[in-house]
């Protein structure tokens, strides 16, 4: 499972961080930082919730 974030699309709303704070954080620049781009399978539920929560679909999950 790999997380890809499109920083050009991200609006820094932080929904991903709210859903899965161990994997996403809104950085100093106001855009998302992916803290762990290749999470272990056991975190799938949280990471998927975060990806789905992004209002502007800036996050993608592969694998």
């Amino acid at each position, binding site marked *: 499972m790999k997380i890809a974030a499109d920083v050009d699309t991200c609006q820094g709303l932080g*929904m991903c961080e709210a859903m899965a*704070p161990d994997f996403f954080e809104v950085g100093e620049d*106001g855009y998302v930082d992916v803290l762990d781009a290749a999470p272990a399978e056991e975190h799938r539920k949280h990471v998927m919730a975060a990806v789905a929560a992004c*209002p*502007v679909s800036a996050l993608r999950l592969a694998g």
Partner: protein
Amino acid sequence: MPHRLVVVGASLAGLRAVEGARSAGYQGEISLVGEELWAPYDRTSLAKAYLTEQNAEMVTLISDRELRDDLGVDLHLGERAQGLDLAARDVVTDRTRIRYDALVIATGATPRQLPGTEGLRGVSTLRTLDDARDVRTAMDAGARVIIIGAGFIGSEVASAAHKRGLSVTLIEAMPTPLSRSVGPAVGEMLTDLHREAGTAVRLGVGVEQVLHANGQVTGVRLADGSVVEADLVVAGLGVTPATGWLGAAVDLHRDGGIVCDASLATSVPGIWAAGDVAHAPQALFDGELMRLEHWTNAAEQGSLAGRNAVSRQEPELLDSVPYFWSDWYGHRVQFVGTPGADEVLLVGPPGPGAIALYRRGNRVVGALTVDRQRVVMKLRRRIADAGDWDEAVTFARELDVLAVTR
């Protein structure tokens, strides 16, 4: 599992209900009924990029084709639900009857109109794509703009008009805007964002009359007798839940919203509600019944209602912290939690960079930030954990010192 799920209201909460049901493994039929002609789109951008950016398109959340092919939805767009036949378990629309085994109501809310302005050109609310097109067309033509109601949407429209270099006046009947949503002190601080940008703000003065000539608005006369001229008047007077079509079929709150329990079930078995239309108890805030008008609330509730509607198991309960954002003059305002507090404390100086914390007893229950994207979700976590007030204040103070010394 039910045989057919019907979702009424094809916007954010309705879409998430459909997705929630499918993600729970539901394979039965789903009908989605929506009064607007379009597949679900994002309203939040209507007061932001859609008004300020050249050639901005509406932000669609999904296409008709994806709804039909990927989610297997029987789509009824441009169709209005007119009532429920509880005995037959039918949704009655202006075209047909649709039988349901489970029903999710996600009809959202409708903006209050300015009294006595029906049919006048140059007067608009801002809720739908059609509204936004009207407002944008008038702004393109260089309209002098009046906004009545200095809430979040009115403030975003003021900010958009200002960004386009238009003359803009913001009029608010209350002495302090946003008192109900963020408290008076913070409302006052946010109003300064308008003043600093140079937007004219008139507070504590009501509109006496909307002036017009030949069917086109020309300005407003205020209660103090003064007249402000305008070519475009946008009413940001708040919304009322869109439940008129339901009659007395389900229990309604006195504001017209649908009363739900923590699983979003209404008073009638098999009928659920979600989004701007729904009142639900917030476990985190002593079970207080709240009807929120926030994007994330509509998304989360929609999804939960959709899952619960098709599930045979114990329903899932709501568990989240209210959150909204708003963009003014290039500043990002964010709020988490509830404004219903014993005390509101402004940490550090007001204006951009500000953090306001809301206390109930010895807990932190809310936080408002301006241009603090990095901290707001950390405060949200403290609120979700019913965090200690003193610790939250210390945390915010340290952030503030960091920001100042850097």
